[in-house]
């Protein structure tokens, strides 16, 4: 029979989900985090098995585009932690996402669940630094000092969020600043986790495009690394979670999405300073002083804008 969302309310959805028996989740989060939320979900819904796959945002996009382009149903039920707003918007417009409708949706501000794109985590770009080599977090200005030459780690500008970050840098600190940063010969990596490890090892001193979760993970191992929100303030991007409407397990997808919205789910996703939660008072979640964090306004970044940023960035760093 044609899969679809059960019509008879939340209990019906849960029952249908249990009948579906499993849910496929793609997540760009750290593997441990994925494992943690998987086991928490599975112990709550014992009849639903989670097939989780770690996959970075770009790959999620490539893979899905291929499948949908070939008119095949998506092989994923729930995306967890994709930051590419524009792309998700496109999918939402084509009706690929179900609206969240679980009991936990009640406490959520509608702007954080618009178009079925649930803000699972808010990630500010943080300044990572090596605590053995630096007494305190460097400011953006510090990065231009000679001792930072070759010792700065940056993410490449492939993800849209980073394009926005660099663009913001340009508007906030000036074109010249970014040029000087490029002149510092930074190490370019594809993932903050990798930059973080290079900072922890001492290969790099600092990374302004850091991600709190990666830092916390290394700290737990005893690595000499910490992070700070720069005084100049920082950009933040949202990692969205969605439930697919035309996948193999649409009901289970909704149940999983609801779990993401639950205080328990939010606790896991944002634990240990790894992200900012939409819900207030989530224990362990990162808290950013007021006014120091700006969510990226995706309306300011249409495709051609992103392309021009990309060309500009590659001219400097590529």
């Amino acid at each position, binding site marked *: 029979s044609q899969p679809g969302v059960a019509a008879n309310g939340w209990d019906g959805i849960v029952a249908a989900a249990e009948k579906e028996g499993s849910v496929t989740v*793609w997540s760009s989060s750290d*593997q441990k985090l994925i494992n943690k939320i998987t086991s928490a979900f599975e112990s709550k819904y014992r009849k639903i098995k989670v097939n989780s*796959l*770690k*996959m*970075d945002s*770009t*790959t*999620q*996009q*490539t*893979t899905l*585009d*291929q499948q949908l*382009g070939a008119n095949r149903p998506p*092989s994923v039920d729930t995306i967890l932690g994709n930051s590419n707003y524009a792309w998700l918007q496109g999918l939402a417009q084509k009706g690929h996402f179900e609206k969240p409708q679980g009991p936990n949706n009640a406490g959520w501000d509608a702007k954080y669940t618009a178009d079925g794109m649930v803000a699972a985590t808010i990630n500010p770009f943080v300044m990572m630094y090596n605590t053995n080599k630096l007494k305190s977090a460097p400011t953006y200005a510090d990065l231009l000092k000679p001792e930072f030459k*070759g*010792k700065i780690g940056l993410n*490449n500008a492939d993800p849209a969020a980073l394009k926005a970050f660099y663009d913001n840098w340009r508007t906030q600190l000036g074109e010249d600043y970014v040029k000087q940063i490029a002149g510092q010969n930074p*190490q*370019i*990596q*594809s*993932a903050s*986790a*990798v930059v973080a*490890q*290079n900072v*922890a*090892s*001492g*290969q*790099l001193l600092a990374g302004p495009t850091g991600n709190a979760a990666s830092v916390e*993970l*290394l700290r737990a*191992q*005893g*690595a000499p690394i910490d992070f700070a929100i720069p005084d100049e303030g920082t950009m933040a991007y949202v990692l969205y979670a969605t439930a697919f409407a035309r996948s193999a397990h649409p009901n289970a997808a909704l149940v999983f999405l609801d779990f993401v919205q639950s205080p328990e789910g939010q606790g896991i996703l944002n634990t240990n300073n790894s992200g900012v939660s939409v819900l207030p008072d989530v224990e362990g979640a990162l808290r950013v002083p007021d006014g120091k964090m700006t969510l990226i306004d995706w309306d300011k970044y249409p495709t051609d804008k992103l392309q021009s940023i990309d*060309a500009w960035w*590659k*001219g400097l760093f*590529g």
Partner: protein
Amino acid sequence: MTTDAPAARLDTSRAPRPLWRRVKPKSLVHLLGIVMIAGLVYPLVMLLVRASGDVRASWDAITAIPDLWPSLLNTVWLALGCVIVAVILGVLLAMCVANLPRRWYNTAQLLCTLPLFMPPIAAVSGWVFVASSAVGYGNVLLRTLLGIESDSGPFNVYSLPWIVFITALYLVSYVFLFVSTALRESDATLELSARVFGSSWFMTQIRVVLPSIRPALYYSIGIALLLGLGQFTAPLLLGATARVDVITTEMYRLTSASPPNYDAATLLSVPLLAVAMIIVAVQRRSLGNLRRYTSVSRGAMRARTPRRWLIVPPIVYVVLAIVPPTASLILVSLSPYWTGSVDFSNMSLRSYQEVLATPQYVDSITTTLEIVLLSVIGGIVLSTAVALYITRSRSFVARLLEFTINLPIAMPGIVIGLGILISYGLGFLDLYGSQTVFVIAYIYLYMIFGTRMIVSGLTRLPDSYDHAARVAGAGAVSTFLRIKLPLLRNSMTSAGMLMLVLMSHEFAASMILRTSFLQVLSTKLFDAFNYGIYPDVAALAVIMVAISAICAVVILSTRGGRNLEI
């Protein structure tokens, strides 16, 4: 050879034989040969078809690449750099080994081929841990030993010289193989007579020894150039930071973009294809007069005046190629996180447990083993069939097959990956995303190595073995099963193991063919290197090295380094 025409009766005016009797088994074999050729040519044709499809759009996409011209230039410079370094070192090594005392010869020969068993992706990641400017183990060690006060250097792995160095380091083994085989087969008295006629040792090497193995030199220069042009792993892993892009990484980027632009990628591969063809053609020409260089006797090892100290360069080479990357991978894999300092108290096997508890990693290992095993089996069967065919038949089809089966060597893995993707992957068979397409690609890429080994095994078998069996009453099939197959067993085993090693290392084509769900060890290692935790990366790489090491032991112990002669 016998015709298998049935013994006819006296009556020649009988009705014509039924059709199935008239189709001779021979023509069936030729037909299979043609099918095989078609299968080999199909991806290349598809590349050209696709490249010539929407040339305008592709051209625009290519010219839109910001650093295209620097990338092309880089490709040329890197290739030339690799060739120069690899050929000089390879030739020097081969000459050292040739002048060793006889009882050391085999060991030294084996030693110098060991770097071939180092998985490229693991090697490059290993070198990152060795030569990262601030906390690379090698840098830290050197700074401590030399008392350098700086907190970085002297090496910086993310640089053009290091990309050349790492790539060339493993090309040396190839050059060594060709040159040292040629030296061994050349007549030692050529050198000795030059000495007697008044030429010093050094001048003799220059004037007599090297020129007399000119074909092998040309051949290895050609191969090194091709491999250098197609280099992918080091530029991909180090290039972003070193700001060094090459044509293969640009191709990869085109195919991994969203949406992937296969047309542009294929168009970009055309120059590589063309250069490969030119090199092959030039090689064929310069090898034309091979007969001049065939020596009457192979006296080789016997009479050269041995010099023991010449064992030092081979040892230095092997130690350099294997120990630093492997050791640093092991150190990192045992540490909780990567630092330049070694703290034994913190070490544990945690990363290994982690890797083995992560389904995606375990999946990639089992997927690799599955794909590689299937490919090896397919590769051996096909290699044996092709080898038998091209050694037995002098037909045009056989010679054409012999030529086509050699083509994949000339082309970069990424080009072949792309060709396979658009032919078998996205073509009428629509195999993209299946293990089968990997199996096809791996067989396509590495069957030639198996075929060569089996051919050389076959040519070592005199016809008289077969003939004796036939005359003794064994039919053609029985002769094949009881005489030929058992005698080929060793060749087939080592062919299989060699293919196993090469396939399990395959990276470039796999990068093109992989999907999120179907990853092999090398591509998973690449992802881990880019997105993952270094100790886990290191543990995964160590596992990969260990698998290769096991294969190396099997190959090298079955029949010594001769198994590697290609």
